[in-house]
């Protein structure tokens, strides 16, 4: 872990006219970490990134870099550089000139020599694997190549934090996967802090060390990817991450971080995410916790609605008396089949009951 590249956000809020983009929030980004801000569009993640970059000013609060308050500094005087979603390459410059641009700025005597500039551009070209394309113009590059140039251009000034604004969302799936690994490798090589904004949960969970889930201008949860997936702290995170099934339950008892819940007459022990004994709860069960079994009057039963193929498994939606239920199975099932559903005695997470809106399904549709 490096010692520079810590970002500290305290009491930051931002409004655009009547719209609240960010409610007052605090966030500590550890030095050298790969930190993702994850949330649906309009949740404020890009606004927060722009405030860190200096492209937007917060209405309240401070932004500090390694302990130094930089809230009032313009972007060019911050030790950060940004990779834009649209790449934002300079169309009238070659790849090499794009990458070297950051070294040609500022007072003449402070600029690196022509020779040093050339060496550092070559070093960057090598880092992103584009040595052979240095003379091309941006209009002659593929999307993946353009994004690599954008990353190299942003890294040449050796920023303490690299800001990435949905850098992969405009790319084809295969290129996106390849660049994801590339970013991870570059991060490991440089130990620069990466602050990565995305609406893609797979992307965030697969490459980050820490994920901040955002919703409605607030931070819902900041944790490592495993915790975000296995123990989402709020209903929103639970619905946004992964694809669980939600059942209404009565809480019989709780204590020791567990809640005894009753779902349609079936009692089991779920993790407690803030429910009260005697109250109602929403219990989330992950598809991998649920098991398809032959129909059995003692168990929850349902009718298969849809069956989709995912390579390693099939995902089936089952209509049950308690609501729709999502399962992963090895063999395909025909729509209309009746089947039983089983889960362990200790499974699921119980959240305080609230009206359900179909958030989880929309997040993919962006």
């Amino acid at each position, binding site marked *: 872990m490096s010692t520079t590249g810590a970002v500290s956000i305290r009491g930051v809020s931002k409004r655009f006219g009547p719209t609240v983009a960010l409610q007052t929030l605090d966030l500590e980004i550890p030095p050298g970490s790969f930190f993702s801000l994850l949330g649906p569009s309009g949740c404020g993640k890009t606004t927060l990134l722009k405030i860190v*970059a200096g*492209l937007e000013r917060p209405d309240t609060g401070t932004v500090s870099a390694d302990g130094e308050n930089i809230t009032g500094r313009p*972007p060019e005087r911050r030790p950060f550089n940004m990779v834009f979603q649209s790449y*934002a*390459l300079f169309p*009238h410059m070659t790849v090499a000139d794009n990458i070297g641009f950051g070294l040609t*700025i500022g007072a003449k005597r402070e600029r690196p020599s022509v020779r040093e500039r050339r060496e550092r551009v070559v070093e960057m070209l090598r880092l992103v694997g584009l040595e052979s394309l240095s003379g091309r113009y941006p*209009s002659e590059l593929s999307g993946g190549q353009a994004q690599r140039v954008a990353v190299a251009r942003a890294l040449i*000034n050796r920023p303490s934090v690299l800001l990435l604004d949905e850098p992969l969302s405009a790319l084809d799936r295969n290129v996106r996967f390849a660049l994801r690994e590339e970013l991870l490798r570059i991060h490991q090589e440089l130990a620069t802090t990466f602050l990565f904004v995305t609406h893609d949960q797979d992307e965030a969970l697969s490459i980050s060390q820490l994920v901040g889930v955002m919703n409605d201008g607030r931070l819902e949860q900041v944790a490592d990817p495993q915790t975000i997936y296995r123990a989402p702290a709020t209903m929103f995170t639970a619905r946004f991450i992964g694809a669980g099934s939600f059942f209404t339950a009565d809480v019989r008892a709780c204590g020791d971080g567990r809640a005894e819940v009753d779902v349609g007459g079936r009692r089991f022990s779920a993790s407690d995410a803030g429910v009260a004994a005697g109250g109602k709860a929403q219990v989330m069960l992950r598809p991998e916790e649920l098991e398809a079994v032959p129909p059995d009057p003692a168990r929850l039963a349902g009718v298969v609605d849809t069956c989709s193929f995912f390579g390693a498994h099939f995902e089936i939606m089952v209509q049950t008396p308690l609501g729709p239920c999502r399962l992963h199975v090895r063999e395909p099932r025909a729509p209309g089949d009746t089947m039983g559903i089983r889960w362990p005695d200790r499974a699921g997470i119980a959240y305080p009951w609230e009206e359900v809106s179909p958030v989880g399904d929309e997040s993919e549709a962006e």
Partner: protein
Amino acid sequence: MIGRSRLLGAAVIALVVFIWLPLVVVLAFAFNGGSNLSWPLHGLSLRWFRLIFGDEAFRSGLKASAIAAFATALVAGTVGTTGAFAFARRPSRLSSALESGSRIPVMLPPLFIGIALVAAMKTFAIDPSMWTIVTGHVIVTTPFVILIVGARLRNYDVTVEQAARDLGATPQTVLRRITFPLVAPSILGAMVVAFAISFDEVLITNFTSGTTQTLPLFVLSRLHRTIDPSVNAIAAILLLVPWLAVGITLLWQRTRPSRSSAAAPAEELARAA
């Protein structure tokens, strides 16, 4: 279907002939060896070009037109570009009102502008000169510059400027190294349009020129007396000078590296010209 597309083809051909025939006739007679304006031509020759270039009045008219057109292109290019930046980059109710206002000269009859300029010159006791000619031309050409440069400024990705700022460039550096190089082809194109409009402007010039005779005015005065084939040679020059300017600009833009972003202004220019 086939019958209809044939009809359409015939209509297009008729239209093209209708538009191009006068051009072809003028150009053909400009190189006519004989002195009658009748078909067929009496061999090819440059005698009419020799004749008009030997005429002192023609040469001074060409010179006056060239000076006026260059000055108009420079002034309208500068004023129009400044205006386009202000309108595109400082959006407000006032700026959009001003922008609509800046288009008014295009909608006014040139005759009206001419009369208005004469009235203004009388009121402020300004004598007609090259200055007043250029003023009239700048009034009618600036809206085109604002339109062309403004269109380019509005359809380009401003995040490249944010990216440059992010890499450490000050606003001045961004303007000099990013914005200006990207917009320059459009500015140049707009200036060529201004040049072409100014070069053969005759209505307003008639009111503001005084004793200065521009090329179009020279042609008019000549037609009053007789129609001789030298007029065709002058028409050919009036046609070819702006075409050459546009052609050279298009070629220059084609050879620039950033093809995708330069193509748009080049097409705009071709349309406007």
